């Protein structure tokens, strides 16, 4: 790994100030499970001059409940999120998503904030310098996407425009199903944004001098039925081929409210509004679930090698909807 200036930040303000001073040439390090891979591969067009450690900022890893909001600090470890009794009890979808990430080793160091900000896993994007990379492409600001005509078996089937790399954050899918808000700190103070709006086709809305401080989950979501399903080739380590997180409100078996989010199918977490509309007001049945799954994928435009993802996605949506009624589904 090429070297850099290393700075321990002690407050959120200090971290943001440093980011501003380096004008985009510094990167934050939380758990490092993604950052160090990006640095070892020397994958970004510009190697960072500085790495700013945010683990030295106290208090950013807490999980607290107050004022009808469940608040999770950006530096909470995935292993702690997966184990937290509060999270397990109130937002099982998030606990399950956290437990599905990587391996126990990764979860013992990886943070929830870092998970949302991870770089894409597109193999053209990640091509390391020592093997002749970085490969220029749309996402890197130069040249067309290499995946469209290349090996795109794990790429987007929905909403791909210029770049077809999928958002691989499992935590983002779960948090979006919980309608979580992100608190972002910057030099001018804090702002709040929903998880769905945080993501953009080529990344996220963070400015060069901003960082994620915490996540807030409204208590109203916590009473809904929650479900997280992730299809991978191997159980540990592998990223999702498709994942689905759903929050479903039920009253006597009739769906009163729904949020259904698909992961790893689009450059951003994909909210399947058409599927939600299909099930709200309906008693949950095999038929309703199957129709909703068709609707969720109605606009799918697979690339040359990934049509198989459409069927997997439909199956997961169907199971997520059915499983939310006790006794139905797996």
């Amino acid at each position, binding site marked *: *790994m*090429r*070297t*850099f*200036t*290393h*700075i*321990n930040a002690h407050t959120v303000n200090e971290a943001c100030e*440093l980011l501003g*001073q*380096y*004008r985009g040439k510094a990167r934050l*390090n939380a*758990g*490092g*499970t993604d950052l*160090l*891979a990006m*640095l*070892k591969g020397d994958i970004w067009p510009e190697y960072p*001059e*500085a*790495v700013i*450690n945010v*683990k030295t900022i106290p208090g950013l890893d807490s999980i607290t409940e107050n004022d009808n909001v469940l608040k999770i600090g950006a530096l909470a470890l995935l*292993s702690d999120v997966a184990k937290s009794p509060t999270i397990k009890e109130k937002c099982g979808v998030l606990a399950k998503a956290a437990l599905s990430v*990587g*391996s*126990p*080793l*990764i979860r*013992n*160091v990886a943070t929830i904030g870092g998970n949302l900000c991870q770089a894409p896993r597109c193999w053209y994007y990640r091509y390391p310098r020592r093997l002749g990379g970085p490969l220029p492409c749309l996402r890197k600001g130069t040249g067309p996407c290499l995946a469209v005509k290349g090996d795109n078996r794990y790429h987007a089937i929905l909403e791909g425009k210029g770049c077809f790399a999928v958002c691989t954050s499992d935590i983002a899918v779960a948090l979006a199903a919980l309608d979580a808000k992100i608190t972002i700190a910057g030099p001018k103070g804090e702002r709040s944004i929903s998880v769905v709006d945080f993501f953009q086709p080529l990344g996220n809305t963070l400015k060069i001098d901003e960082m994620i401080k915490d996540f807030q989950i409204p208590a109203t979501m916590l009473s809904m039925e929650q479900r997280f399903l992730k299809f991978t080739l191997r*159980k*540990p*380590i592998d990223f999702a081929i498709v994942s689905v997180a759903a929050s479903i409100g039920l009253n006597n078996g009739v769906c009163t409210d729904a949020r259904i989010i698909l992961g790893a199918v689009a450059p951003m977490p994909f909210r399947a509004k058409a599927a939600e509309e299909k099930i709200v007001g309906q008693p949950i049945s095999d038929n309703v679930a199957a129709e909703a799954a068709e609707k969720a994928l109605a606009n799918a435009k697979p690339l040359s090698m990934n049509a198989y993802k459409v069927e997997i996605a439909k199956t997961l949506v169907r199971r997520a909807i059915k499983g939310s009624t006790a006794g139905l589904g797996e």
Partner: protein
Amino acid sequence: MEVKVNEQTRKKSEEDKHISLVINGNQYSLEVGYGSYQVKPSDTLAYTLRETLGLTGTKVSCDDGACGSCTVLMSSKAVPSCMILTVECAGKDITTIEGLGDPKTGTLDPLQQSFVDHTAFQCGFCTPGMIMSAKALLNENPHPTEEEIKEALSGNFCRCISHYQVLEAVLAASEKDGGDND
């Protein structure tokens, strides 16, 4: 602008010039710098253990967080030392495979002995990582079920398919530990 950053940087790195940490019960104070005896800001813990301190029991295979061969214990949790910067380990308590047995008598940790007794390795490259992950599990949960062992070791890959014997070795060690055996 450039100058301002450098000044700030110099001040900052001054502050963090030494990294104090405990490895296998020994206190180390490592100097940050660019000499061969020093720790570069970009050195991973795995690199420092092997190349700077000569503790080559910890192996590096993927160097990407994906195989577990570099597993060490940090504050008693199993972590991938290839994805951790040494300069961020100040104040940490680290145990490597060298820290398990008794260096004076050469007696192995019961878990290590159980790996030997069950020939729970072939080439042995993954073994230090397997043992460290299993050690973290047994410290927290002395009597794990088979499923719990599989889950705890799910980030440790073995190229030679030693997994079946590893499972037996860990199970046997956990039974012995509680005195359930004989």
